[in-house]
């Protein structure tokens, strides 16, 4: 048996070790964030947001890529939310277990683990080549929709399961059918949580690069896409292009950091809204 002092010393040592690890990580993040801000804040202005890239992407702003990213997010969410919510509804309200439900669950879970570049290959072969959409906003958006599907399914299933059983019983007792109960009772009470889940998956989708690289992201496009069948510039891919194939390194350097800041602000801003909304919902539901 070790002495009490030795055990206490070990305990203090462990505590300090864990505190130091956490502090080191926080410090590292703060340093990197500061460095990026220091390099990029010079170009940040309202014009940087509202101007398209110009002069072979050595000057101008990030307007077209930013709008392109928003368009991609919109297309992907329009496709993924209805399908994802319906699938979540099935798992939570209709499925009674069994082999088939297990298979559906297994596939959703495997889908969540598929590398993003594989989604790119999938989007290329299904939407671009097989369905003849070509490399465009629609193909890239649908590819991103497939990628975000597991997130939305899981989020909406949790949302439906969190609706108290009493609500359903009360609705049935009033003579409502299952469909009426779902559309008028379960769905409205689950909606805020589902919307929160959707916001969080927007945060995930907006930063993805690999799935859109060969399905619809443009190296450069002079204008914002006006139809779903035209190529779009996207902020993450734009950053990649700026970093790897710039014609004038010194001129693009501040623009690179500026674009990074805009992307981070967009993604983290959207995610923070989602996280905060979820925290509020959980507090309201008393969990």
């Amino acid at each position, binding site marked *: 048996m070790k002495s009490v002092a030795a055990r206490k010393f070990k305990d203090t040592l462990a505590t300090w070790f864990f505190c130091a690890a956490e502090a080191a990580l926080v410090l590292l993040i703060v340093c990197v964030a500061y460095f990026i801000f220091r390099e990029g804040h010079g170009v940040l202005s309202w014009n940087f947001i509202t101007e398209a890239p110009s002069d072979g992407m050595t000057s101008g702003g990030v307007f077209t890529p930013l709008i392109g990213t928003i368009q991609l997010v919109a297309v992907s969410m329009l496709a993924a939310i209805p399908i994802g919510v319906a699938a979540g509804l*099935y798992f939570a309200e209709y499925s009674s277990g069994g082999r088939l439900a297990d298979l559906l669950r297994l596939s959703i879970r495997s889908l969540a683990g598929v590398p993003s570049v594989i989604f790119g290959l999938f989007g290329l072969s299904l939407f671009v080549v097989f369905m003849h959409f070509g490399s465009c906003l629609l193909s890239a958006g649908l590819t991103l929709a497939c990628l975000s599907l597991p997130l939305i399914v899981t989020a909406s299933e949790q949302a439906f399961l969190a609706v108290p059983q009493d609500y359903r019983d009360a609705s049935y007792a009033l003579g409502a059918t299952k469909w009426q109960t779902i559309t008028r009772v379960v769905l409205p009470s689950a909606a805020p949580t589902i919307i929160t889940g959707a916001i969080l998956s927007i945060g995930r989708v907006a930063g993805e690069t690999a799935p859109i690289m060969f399905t619809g992201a443009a190296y450069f496009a002079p204008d914002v896409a006006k139809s779903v069948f035209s190529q779009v510039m996207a902020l993450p891919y734009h950053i990649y292009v700026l970093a790897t194939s710039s014609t004038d390194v010194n001129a693009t350097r501040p623009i690179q950091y500026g674009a990074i800041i805009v992307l981070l602000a967009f993604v983290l801003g959207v995610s923070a809204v989602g996280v905060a909304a979820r925290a509020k919902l959980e507090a309201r539901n008393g969990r």
Partner: protein
Amino acid sequence: MSHNGDAVLDKTDWTVKLHGAARLVAGKEAGPGGPGRGNKMKRSSFGGRGDLIAARAIFCISTAGVIIMAFIIMFLVANGLPALRETPLHSILLGFDWYPTEEPPALGMLPLIAGTLAATLLSSLIGLPVALALAVFTAEIAPKKLREVFKMMMELLGFVPSIVLGFIGMQILAPALQNRFNIATGLNLLNASLLLGFLIIPVVASLSEEALSSVPRELRDASYALGATRWETISKVVVPGAKSGMISASLLGMMRSLGETMIVLMAAGGAAVLPKSIMDPIRPLTSTIAAEMGETPVGGVHYHALFFAGLILMVITLAINLLSMLVERRGAQK
């Protein structure tokens, strides 16, 4: 006992009556699809035909996951296997030369596979200990208020796009490594692994923290009551209790790092050779696909070879995914 049984019976009886009443009301409301037909339906106990149609539609839509998964595998196989016509399987898996655009093309993927495995291993060695330590800190040591802050920070950190990390590797870390170690290029295995390690910290830490938090309070109380210090309680009671959750989280982290594309594309250097030290540049499967797919004509040998690389990647990923599910199930059974 008997009293209890009665109560249960009573409740079921009541529920049956209630549902019966509901069926009647619903039948009237549903009109033509009314009460008479309700008996024929097997799945939904009451409600009109509309209800059944809705149920069927919901089911059909929910198969989207399986369909997408099937399509992914089908396309990878259909577009990847033609590569075998050109080169036999063993010379793809064990060949040292990756010159897909030469005539004749050399499709040896061993350097790519080795690059993927090396980056995954090294990044796990770097990232997993940090992530698990952070999870322990957040779940067991941090005061309650700080815990919420850290959980939120971890979650937001998980949203940082990988392109940003790749950019940091290329523009900040690479020059730093190059100067510090006096090497030809800072874009190498170490650079990519550091960033991949950083990438997997949030997801592994969050999931492990959940596993640690779900260890019952009573176990900790019992340990403290026996006179154990906090560190003893953590290392001998809480962590063993959360082991399966933490292993599964680590496997998911490894899967993330294995499938990550942008970081290795930008920071790993991209030389298709077997890495001999951590300062050697590598070219993992993911970055090969991302870098070369844009420039290759649809349907050529190179195109098929890249899909075959995707197939290899997919097989490894699915294997790790299944393993993590198995670990979780084991843990749940205990």
